[in-house]
């Protein structure tokens, strides 16, 4: 895949100053770094939920934000799917209505078909009539994924979106998701602070720390250049897990 995303932004949020200048081209990129490194802030800038103080974001050749000339594309017009760590389904709408919420310009029948297809993809067909309050954490996250992909976005942002899933389901969903993304040529940027997961799944890894990119490239290259620091982080996450 050729370069699809160009980011050159600067944004200060409290004590963190995000300074990111990079281009992404791998279909599945893992954005990796410790808590508070600026991963979620960067995703919010890309998704249009945070307006950066300075800089430019270009997706598939289309400028989404440019502070030099005031260009600003609203979140819904960016054609970006966004799934946060905590699934935020609309509590008053059932699963079908949640998944169809972002569908525009489709006939009723086409919209229904898309919802069915998305729920099947995430093993959630049996949940179609259920309300969010009646779903488990894992079920909610699957519905949130289906809702994000239903409008067929041109980029998928995943902010630690699989933490609520058990290991078996997580690997199954990941496999289905990556297949679908590759079939539809939709790249994904996946935030993780889990070293093992980041380096097992990534096409490319971007390591971010204190708001700045420390390394970027294929997992083995990044692993070699950041070995000491990553081992320290692995140790600290193991200690935290204990």
């Amino acid at each position: 895949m050729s370069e699809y995303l160009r980011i050159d932004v600067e944004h200060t949020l409290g004590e963190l100053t995000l300074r990111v200048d990079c281009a992404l081209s791998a279909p599945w990129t893992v954005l990796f770094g410790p808590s508070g490194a600026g991963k979620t802030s960067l995703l919010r800038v890309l998704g249009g939920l945070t307006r950066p103080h300075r800089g430019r974001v270009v997706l598939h050749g289309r400028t989404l934000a440019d502070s030099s000339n005031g260009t600003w594309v609203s979140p819904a017009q960016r054609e970006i799917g966004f799934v946060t760590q905590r699934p935020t389904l609309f509590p008053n709408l059932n699963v079908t209505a949640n998944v169809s919420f972002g569908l525009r310009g489709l006939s009723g029948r086409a919209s229904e078909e898309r919802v069915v297809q998305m729920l099947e993809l995430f093993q959630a067909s049996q949940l179609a009539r259920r309300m969010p309050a009646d779903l488990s954490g894992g079920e909610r996250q699957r519905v949130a994924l289906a809702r994000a992909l239903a409008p067929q976005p041109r980029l998928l942002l995943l902010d630690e979106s699989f933490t609520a899933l058990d290991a078996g389901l997580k690997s199954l969903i990941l496999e289905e998701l990556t297949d679908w993304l590759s079939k539809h040529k939709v790249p994904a940027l996946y935030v993780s602070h889990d070293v093992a997961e980041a380096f097992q799944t990534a096409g490319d890894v971007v390591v971010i720390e204190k708001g700045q990119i420390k390394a970027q490239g294929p997992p083995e290259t990044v692993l070699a250049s950041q070995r000491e620091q990553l081992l320290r982080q692995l140790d600290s996450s193991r200690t935290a897990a204990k």
Partner: protein
Amino acid sequence: MDQQAIFLTFRLAAFTTLILLAVSIPLGYWLAFGQARWKPLVEAAVALPLVLPPTVLGFYLLVLLGPQTAVGRALSTIFGHPLAFSFAGLLVGSVIFSLPFAVQPITSGFRSVDREILEAAQVLSDDRIRILRKVLLPLVRPFLLTAAVLAFTHTVGEFGVVLMIGGGIPGVTKTLSISIYDQVQDFAYRQANSTALLLLSLSFLALLIIYGRRGRAGV
């Protein structure tokens, strides 16, 4: 009991509540999510009737609606008669006087909505009306009910503003609270008691509805 006053009071309260809901939903949305620097100015203006003596508000409304001001003349042209001492004038006064009782619960409702839910909707749709209708309004329904009940009962119980703007003309501007005042002036305590009992029961019922709903909705 003064049947005319009952009918007039409930008609005034119903119209005031409908107008207030229509005004307070967009205003409450803006107060909750807007980022204008002069927002505190609007918030203070909306809350003013809470602290202002009703007679002060009534006096300025009387002046504003009178033929000496451009607003008064314009409204007279629209309605075909001066608004002071008319039902339409009473309605304008009631809407202004009860504004904070409708706006504040609705603003609190919008502020209580999980920010991430709102952002999830904004990522999926640009249509603000659709987000409001499909996501936000159902989530703030208990707050809408509170706003409606408070606006209605507050209008029913109005005295100072109504007296200043309306003057208590039977069948036109004489509401239940003015009726009680007149009955007491005439030493007709029995009639005053039955009217007061009606207002007391209505107020208690309104509060019961609000607290009952809050209990169920966990608000």
